[in-house]
């Protein structure tokens, strides 16, 4: 259903992209997307394929000749286009207020309080076909807050939510103002503090001191049901005798996320800026039992730690494709293409988009192909690998039965330099049509929304002094 766009808030690009009603999440029962080529990422590409989406989930993918389209489905038929699963962004500290708190250790914070649905980042993500985004806090931290996986569509955080409390951001690289030593101390300290606190809880329980219970009630937490039960500590790094005596609900809410981290229930994304940070990160993770639920977010220089990372079995997210080093003696510049190092080492890696509209995830994957990484692995780095990192393997990053009903229609192969996203179908609803994208029109055609102050379509070009008609300076437009 298309509604006319009469909202005056033209600066809010998100509203302008909608082909359907702006206010609520779109409810479309059945959609069939037909395309000249369907890239499923589960096997060979399907020529003249179709994807059927019912109730927001994919129910069938296959050749148009083999798949039955429900008679009451809305059909989007684009024989000249290529259908592709949405890109998956494993980690982005964007679309939120400010990326970091000043507090060193703040795992009780949640980005859901900071996500701004009309932030330009989400509008741009939709335009680039990035449909699943793990929003986390930034790198300037010791232990930051909890992230959330969202889709770049919706006017409220609840509408955008895909998976809450998706992980905690931790940094092994020094926070601004800290040295490597004080950072390491703060990181160790956060977990040592947790351990000491839990031991004290057990001691208080033994002493018959009900401080923790009173504190929990004061913090407004109910101590009923699951929260009233105690379980042994399930941490592979260390243990607390007698912890099963403590009702889980009594654990202080500021430390409870750290408890879930050490028990492997809350994934960690650990930022490393140098190879040394990787070692520090692995030490902390090993000591506290969360190596298997940790993903390393790496600056380009960290390719040198690839063997150590391989041993650990961690997945990586690469923030940057190239590492440039200047040999201090010869003055020669040596460039290393970082994803190739991880590919050759057999380490699964995901890529990150940058703030550059022309170099989004499709570009990152294409550069991998240019530098010798097979196309399938390059595409995996922006789809199935980040989906795995986020624990959403069956839901996003591929076109298969049971997956979320997300389809991106490209004008050509997604990695071709001339291909653009023409349409986006999200949960079965057609939410983006490039031909109606006002911001694209502005930038690319120089057109302006008609009737606005920056609409210059009626003006004649300024002829210069001495030539041409009488000057009328009032008409002259300053650059928008």
């Amino acid at each position: 259903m298309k509604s006319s766009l009469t909202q005056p808030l033209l600066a809010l690009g998100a509203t302008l992209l909608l082909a359907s009603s702006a206010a609520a999440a779109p409810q479309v029962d059945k959609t069939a997307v037909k395309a000249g080529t369907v890239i499923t990422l589960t096997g060979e590409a399907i020529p003249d394929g179709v994807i059927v989406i019912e109730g927001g989930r994919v129910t069938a993918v296959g050749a148009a000749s083999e798949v039955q389209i429900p008679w009451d489905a809305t059909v989007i038929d684009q024989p000249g286009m290529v259908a592709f699963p949405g890109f998956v962004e494993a980690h982005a500290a964007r679309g939120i207020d400010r990326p970091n708190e000043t507090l060193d250790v703040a795992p009780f914070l949640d980005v859901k309080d900071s996500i701004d649905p009309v932030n330009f980042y989400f509008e741009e993500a939709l335009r680039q076909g990035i449909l699943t985004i793990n929003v986390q806090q930034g790198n300037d931290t010791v232990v930051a807050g909890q992230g959330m996986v969202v889709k770049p569509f919706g006017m409220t955080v609840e509408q955008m939510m895909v998976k809450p409390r998706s992980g905690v951001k931790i940094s092994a690289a020094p926070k601004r103002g800290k040295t490597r030593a004080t950072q390491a101390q703060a990181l160790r300290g956060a977990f040592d503090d947790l351990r000491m606190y839990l031991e004290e809880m057990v001691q208080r329980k033994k002493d018959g001191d009900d401080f923790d219970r009173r504190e929990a009630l004061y913090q407004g937490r109910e101590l009923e049901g699951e929260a009233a039960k105690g379980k042994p500590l399930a941490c592979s790094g260390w243990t607390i005798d007698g912890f099963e005596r403590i009702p889980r609900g009594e654990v202080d809410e500021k430390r409870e996320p750290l408890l879930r981290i050490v028990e492997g229930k809350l994934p960690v994304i650990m930022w490393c800026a140098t190879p040394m940070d990787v070692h520090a990160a692995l030490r902390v993770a090993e000591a506290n039992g969360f190596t298997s639920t940790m993903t390393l977010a790496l600056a380009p220089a960290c390719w040198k730690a690839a063997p150590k990372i391989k041993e650990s079995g961690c997945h990586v997210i690469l923030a940057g494709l190239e590492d440039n080093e200047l040999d201090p003696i010869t003055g020669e510049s040596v460039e290393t293409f970082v994803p190739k190092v991880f590919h050759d080492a057999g380490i699964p890696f995901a890529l990150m988009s940058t703030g550059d509209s022309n170099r989004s995830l499709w570009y990152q994957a294409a550069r991998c192909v240019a530098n010798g990484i097979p196309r399938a692995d390059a595409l995996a780095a922006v789809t199935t690998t980040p989906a795995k990192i986020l624990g959403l393997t069956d839901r996003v990053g591929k076109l298969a039965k049971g997956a979320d009903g997300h389809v991106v229609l490209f004008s050509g192969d997604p990695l071709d330099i001339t291909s653009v996203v023409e349409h986006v179908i999200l949960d079965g609803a057609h939410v983006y049509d490039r031909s109606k994208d006002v911001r694209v029109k502005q930038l690319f055609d120089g057109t302006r929304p008609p009737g606005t102050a920056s609409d210059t379509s009626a003006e004649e070009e300024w002829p210069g002094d001495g030539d041409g008609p009488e000057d009328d300076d009032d008409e002259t437009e300053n650059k928008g």
Partner: protein
Amino acid sequence: MLTSLILSAAAAASGSSVPADGTSWTIHADKVYTSTGKVHESALIVVEGGKIRAITPGVEATRDALHAPVVTAGMVDASARLNSGTSSVEQSSEVTPLVSAEFGLDLYSPGWGRLARTGVTSAFITPLNQNCVGGMGTVVKTAGDRSIKARTVEGAPMLCGAIGSQPSQRNSSAFGRPTSFFNRRPTTRMGVEWEWRKSFFEAAQAKEPDDAQKVLLDALAGKVGVFVQAWATQDIRTAVFLKEEMAREGFGEMRLVIDAGAEAWREPAMLVRTNTSVILPPVPAQGRTTDGALMSVECARVLRDNGISFALSGHGASRLDIQAGLAMRGGLTREQALRAVTLTPAQLLGVDGRVGSVEAGKDADLILWNGEPFEATTRPVGVLIGGHLALDPR
């Protein structure tokens, strides 16, 4: 039969295919894009003594030939800005026509290697934008003997400068006693334009023009090209109206090239009527460049559609092959994008006698690509500059 005769003649002429001095090679390509519009299929290129000796289409690769799917001419970056920063322009005076960028070149900078490895074989280095008329630019090969003489390519003399906010950025009005040359005028765009107009007027009216004024007179007459950085529409207008004013006053017809003309797409008619060429800067990440100019990937296409002669540039930081790809994304064909980074900049800079296309007799500045050029999925895997291997494909 004929092709094999040509082949054996070429092989005989070059002696053995194994290079002795490192400037003689045979290269086989599935496709050679010459930049002249001609495309050779399955061609063998014979390089000898640093020059392209012969191109023979329709032959098989020889055993010791370097092979690549595609070969093109080396790219010419018309605004490479390798030596950027405040040291790149003489700031003690606003108008310094006698200063030449070639004397400020640092051939040991690692930036040359980076340019060469990404396929830029010739770079136009200019005094930059911290004063009004900065001086003369120079075309330099990005690899080869580390001597300015060996690396300079003689071309059309170009007087470089800037119009806009950058020349006045560091200046401030004198507060109390003037303490540095930053307290001189201009502090505004109009002051910058006045410096340009004043120097041209004074040169034109001087009874005995000094050396600097002689350069300005040559610029007015069109014997020396005028290469002006002007990002925003208002600055491009200023440059074009300056040319028109000088012509109206009878001082001559300038040959105007707008460098970093990010907003040239907005008012193309004035560029067309004055036959002004444009060098486009790298496409900005989110739409706005320096001086707040609005630019997208489509700008090259708009200039093409208006028949304006244009070249692309990388400004040192941005890969020129990716800029060509982005111009394709904006609507140029691959052939047009190739011209915009090879033959057209060579012509604008007057060095097309030596570089800018794959033709017999020109310098052996060649790029070996691992696929169709300018795709994000391909890159240069081999680069020859003057016949020397700057990037080894083997």
